C-alpha cells in the first residue's frame, strides 16, 4: 500500500511538472518569437495607404510618408513619400488631455493645440517680439482701438479650405459667443470687420494690445468654419460643434493633424505636408527635419517618465524628479533643457485681518523669509528667487524688487508695530494638498517665521476648498486664512494679467489679499491701455505699480519656476521648441530629429 502510493504520487508529480515545463517552454518561445520579428517590422514600413511622390522643398533630407489614417479629413492632396521610415517623437505628459475644442479649451490640451491650430501671431516673450502666424503684418490706429491684420494668402486648413478673413472672424466670434475658458481675453473687442478676403479689422471698446491677445496661448486659435457642416450643426455655437471637436476631430491649419484622440492615454499627431510653413524660407517655427509623427503619451508619474526617457521608450519627459536633474545633466544618454517659465509662487497675505492689517507686520514677514533657501529646498535650485509679482524674463519684470532676508530688520519692524515679543496668535497658512513644492516652501516659511516669534500652522487643502475659503475672506476676513500660497500664470503675456488679478480691488476671485488701493488700480488700468501705443510709458507705470506693492506688501512673491525638460540626445533644437508663453508645449515643428 505504502509503496504503491509513493509510486502513484511520483507519477502525478511527473505530470504536474510536465505541465509546468510546457508552460515555461511556451512562455519562453513566445518571448523569443516576440523578440525576433519586432525590429523587422519597424524597418519594412508596410504603409497601408498608397502615396504618390510630390516635390516638397523643405523636406529634402528626410522624406516623409503620410499614411493618414486620419478620422478627420481625407486629405485630397498628394503626399510625399519615399522608402524609409517615419520619424517619431514621443513626449510624455504628466496630466491627461482635456477637451479638443479650440474655442473653449483652457487647460492641459494647450500642450498639442499649437501644433494643430495657428493663431494670427505668435509671441516670443524672452526676446519680446512677435512671429507671424496666420497674419503676415498688422498695425493699430486710433490710439490702439482699431487693429488691422493682413493674412497670408497661402494658408489652408486641413480640410482644404483656404484661411480667409471670414474664417478668422467666425472663429473668434464663436470663442466670444461661447464665453467659456479664456474667452475673456477678447473683452476689448467691440466688433470685427472683414475688409477683404485677406484683411481683417478689429474695432475695440478701449485701447488694448490686441497683438498680444491674438498671440494668447488659449482662446485665440483659428479653425475652419466648415465645422458646422461636418458636425451637422445649425451654427458655430451649436453644442454639436463642440461634440464634433471632442470626438477627436481637428479643423486647424497648423503643421500637424490630429489623427488619434485618446485623451486619457495618448494623442497622436501626424505631419501636415501641405502646411505653408514648410515652404517658407527661414520661417523660425519650421524645421526641415521635424518629426513625421508626434505622440503625446500620458505618463502620470515623474519617476516613470525619467526611467522611460533613459530607456528610450519616450523621447521627451515633461517632468522628472527634480532631485535627479543634476545626475541627468551628466548622463550621456540624455540632454537637460532648463528654461524660465512664467509660473510663479506667491504668498498672499490677508491684509484685512489683524495683526496683518498692519503694514509693518507684513514687511517684517517679508524680511523674515529665506528666499534662497526656499529655492534650494523646495525646487532643488530649479527656480529663481522672485523679484516682484512679474516673473523673470517677461516684459514688465524688474530686478530690484526682492526683499532682503534680514531677521534683525524683521524683528525691529515687528517691535515698531507693537509686537516686540512676537505675535500671540497662530497664523494659518494654506496650500494646495499634494503639491510637494508648495509643501516644502510652506515648511521653510513656518520654520523661519518662528525665529521672529510668529507661529504658523500649515494646512494642506484641496485647491477647491482652499480657494473657496479664501474667496469668503472678502465678506469675512476674520474667518479666512492668514497666508495663502498659490501659483499664478498668465493667460496672455502682459504684466496686467498678474497685477490686475491678484491685486486690483475689482478682482474678487483672485485678489485673495483683499488688497484695495485706488492709486494702484488707476496706475495699472492706465498702463494696460498704453501697452498698445506707448510701451515705454506703460513700462514706467507698471514699475510704479510694483513699487507700491513692494512697499505695501499685500503679497510676497516667492519664486519663479524654471521648467526642466529631459530628452534623448537624438532630438535637436529642443531649446527652440520651448516658449514660456505657451506652457508645456513642445513646438514639434522646430525639432530636428537626427538619425
Amino acid at each position, binding site marked *: 500500500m505504502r509503496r504503491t502510493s509513493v*509510486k502513484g504520487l511520483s507519477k502525478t508529480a511527473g505530470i504536474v511538472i510536465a505541465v509546468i515545463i510546457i508552460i515555461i517552454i511556451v512562455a519562453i518561445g513566445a518571448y523569443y518569437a516576440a523578440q525576433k520579428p519586432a525590429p523587422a517590422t519597424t524597418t519594412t514600413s508596410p504603409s497601408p495607404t498608397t502615396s504618390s511622390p510630390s516635390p516638397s522643398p523643405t523636406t529634402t533630407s528626410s522624406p516623409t510618408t503620410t499614411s493618414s489614417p486620419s478620422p478627420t479629413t481625407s486629405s485630397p492632396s498628394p503626399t510625399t513619400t519615399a522608402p524609409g521610415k517615419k520619424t517619431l517623437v514621443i513626449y510624455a505628459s504628466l496630466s*491627461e488631455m482635456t477637451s479638443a475644442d479650440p474655442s473653449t479649451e483652457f487647460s492641459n490640451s494647450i500642450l498639442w493645440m499649437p501644433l494643430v491650430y495657428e493663431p494670427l501671431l505668435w509671441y516670443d516673450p524672452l526676446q519680446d517680439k512677435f512671429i507671424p502666424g496666420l497674419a503676415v503684418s498688422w498695425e493699430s490706429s486710433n490710439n490702439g482701438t482699431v487693429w488691422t491684420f493682413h493674412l497670408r494668402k497661402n494658408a489652408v486648413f486641413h480640410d482644404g479650405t483656404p484661411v480667409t478673413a471670414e474664417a478668422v472672424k467666425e472663429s473668434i466670434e464663436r470663442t466670444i459667443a461661447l464665453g467659456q475658458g479664456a474667452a475673456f481675453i477678447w473683452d476689448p473687442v467691440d466688433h470685427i470687420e472683414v475688409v477683404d478676403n485677406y484683411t481683417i479689422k478689429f474695432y475695440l471698446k478701449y485701447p488694448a494690445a490686441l497683438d498680444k491677445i491674438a498671440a494668447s496661448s488659449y482662446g485665440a486659435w483659428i479653425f475652419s468654419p466648415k465645422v458646422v457642416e461636418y458636425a451637422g450643426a445649425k451654427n458655430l455655437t451649436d453644442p454639436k460643434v463642440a461634440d464634433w471637436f471632442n470626438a477627436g476631430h481637428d479643423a486647424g491649419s497648423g503643421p500637424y493633424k490630429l489623427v488619434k484622440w485618446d485623451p486619457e492615454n495618448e494623442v497622436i499627431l501626424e505631419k501636415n505636408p501641405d502646411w505653408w510653413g514648410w515652404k517658407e524660407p527661414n520661417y523660425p517655427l519650421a524645421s526641415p527635419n521635424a518629426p513625421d509623427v508626434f505622440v503625446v503619451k500620458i505618463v502620470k508619474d515623474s519617476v516613470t517618465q525619467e526611467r522611460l526617457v533613459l530607456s528610450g521608450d519616450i523621447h521627451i519627459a515633461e517632468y522628472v524628479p527634480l532631485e535627479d536633474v543634476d545626475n541627468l545633466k551628466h548622463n550621456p544618454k540624455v540632454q537637460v533643457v532648463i528654461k524660465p517659465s512664467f509660473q510663479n509662487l506667491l504668498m498672499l497675505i490677508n491684509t484685512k485681518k489683524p495683526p496683518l492689517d498692519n503694514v509693518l507686520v507684513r514687511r517684517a514677514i517679508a524680511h523674515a523669509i529665506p528666499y534662497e533657501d526656499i529655492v534650494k529646498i523646495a525646487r532643488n535650485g530649479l527656480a529663481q528667487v522672485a523679484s516682484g509679482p512679474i516673473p523673470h524674463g517677461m516684459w514688465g519684470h524688474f530686478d530690484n524688487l526682492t526683499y532682503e532676508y534680514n531677521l534683525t530688520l524683521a524683528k525691529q519692524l515687528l517691535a515698531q508695530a507693537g509686537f516686540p515679543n512676537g505675535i500671540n496668535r497662530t497664523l494659518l497658512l494654506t496650500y494646495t494638498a499634494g503639491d510637494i513644492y508648495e509643501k516644502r516652501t510652506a515648511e521653510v516659511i513656518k520654520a523661519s517665521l518662528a525665529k521672529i516669534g510668529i507661529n504658523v500652522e500649515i494646512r494642506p487643502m484641496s485647491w477647491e476648498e482652499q480657494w473657496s475659503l479664501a474667496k469668503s475672506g472678502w465678506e469675512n476676513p476674520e474667518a479666512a486664512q492668514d497666508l495663502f500660497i498659490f501659483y499664478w500664470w498668465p493667460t496672455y503675456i502682459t504684466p496686467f494679467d498678474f497685477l490686475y488679478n491678484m491685486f486690483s480691488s475689482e478682482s474678487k*476671485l483672485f485678489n485673495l489679499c483683499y488688497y484695495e488701493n485706488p492709486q494702484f488700480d488707476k496706475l495699472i488700468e492706465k498702463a494696460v491701455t498704453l501697452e498698445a501705443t506707448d510701451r515705454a510709458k506703460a513700462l514706467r507705470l507698471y514699475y510704479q505699480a510694483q513699487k507700491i506693492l513692494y512697499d505695501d506688501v499685500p503679497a510676497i512673491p516667492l519664486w519663479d519656476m524654471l521648467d526642466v525638460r529631459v530628452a534623448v540626445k537624438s532630438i535637436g533644437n529642443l531649446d527652440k521648441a520651448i516658449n514660456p508663453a505657451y506652457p508645456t508645449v513642445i513646438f514639434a515643428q522646430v525639432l530636428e530629429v537626427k538619425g
Partner: protein
Amino acid sequence: MPVSREYIVKRLILLVVVVFGVLIITFIITRVIPAHPELLWAGAHPTEEQIEKAREQLHLNDPIYIQLLYYLRDFLVGDWGVSWRTRQPVLSDILSALPATLELVTTAFIIAIALGIPLGALAALKRNTWVDHVIRIVSVLGASVPVFWLALIFQLVFSSWLGILPGAKRVDEFIVLETGFKPITGFILLDSLLEGNFAVFVNALHHIILPAIVLAFYPFGLSARMTRAIMTEVLNELYTRSALAWGLPRRVVIYKYALKNTLAPVIASLGLSFGYTIIGAFMVELIFVWPGIGLYAAMALLSYDYPAIIGSIVLVAIFYTVINMIVDIIHAIIDPRVKL
C-alpha cells in the same frame, strides 16, 4: 444544466438593486461632503459668470434629491456624466479603459491559475518535502509582498538592467502606426489576432508579460495556498481513502475526486479576488503606464472627480455581482450537490 432560469433572473434583479443602491449611496456621499465641484468644473482661472454657469450646469443650485433624479435620468440613458477633470464622458472613458485592465487581469489570472493550482496540488501531494517547502515560500511571498514593490523590482531587473522585456506601455506606437492597426474590441491581443496582425500581437504580448506576471503573484499565492490546504484535507477524507482501498488507480482518485472537490472553493475565492484585482491593479497600471481602469479610478479619487468616481464604483459593483454569479454557476457545474 444544474442552473435554473429562475436563479439567473433572481440574480439579475439583485444586480440591479445592488447597482442602484451603490449609485444612490455614493451619489449622496459625494454631494454631502464639501468639495466645490463648480470650481473644479469652471477651470483654472475662471470668471464669476463662468462659476455661476458651472453651478447651473451641474444643477448645484437644486436640492440634493433633484440632483439625484437628474443623475439617475441621465444614467439610465447611458449618460454617466462628464468627468470634471478631463471633460470627457465618463462612460466612454471607462469603456475605453476597461479592456486594457481586463486584458491584463485575465492574463494575470491565467498565469496564476495555470501555475497556482497544479503547484498547490503538488505541494499537497508532496507534503512536508522540499517541494512543498519551496512552493510554500514562493506562494507566501507572492501573497504578501506589496505589488508596487514587485512591479518596480521587475521593471528594474528585466527592463532597465537586462533589457529583455519592455517595462511600460501596452504596445509600441510605432508598430501600430506602421501596420495601420485599428482596435475593434479594445483587447489588443484579441484584435491583432482577429486582424491577422502578427507584428502587433507579438509586440503586445511582449509588453503584457511583465505587468501580468507581477499582477499574477497575489492570485498565484492565494490559489497555491488554498489548493494545498483543501487538497490536503480532501486527501485525508474517508472517501479518498476508501477509494484507494477499493483499488481505484491513484491517478483517478487524485484527478477525478480529490482535485475536483478542491477546485470549487478555490475558484470561488479566486473569482472574488478577480473583482478586487480590477481596482487593485492601479499600482501596476501606474508603474507600467498601462491605460486601465484602476489608474482612471485612482486619479478620479485624487482629484475629487465625482462623476468618474461614481462611474468607477458602479462598474466595480457590477463586476462583483456578475463574477459572484458566474462563480456560483461554476460551483454548481463542478459540484453536483449544489442546485441553483
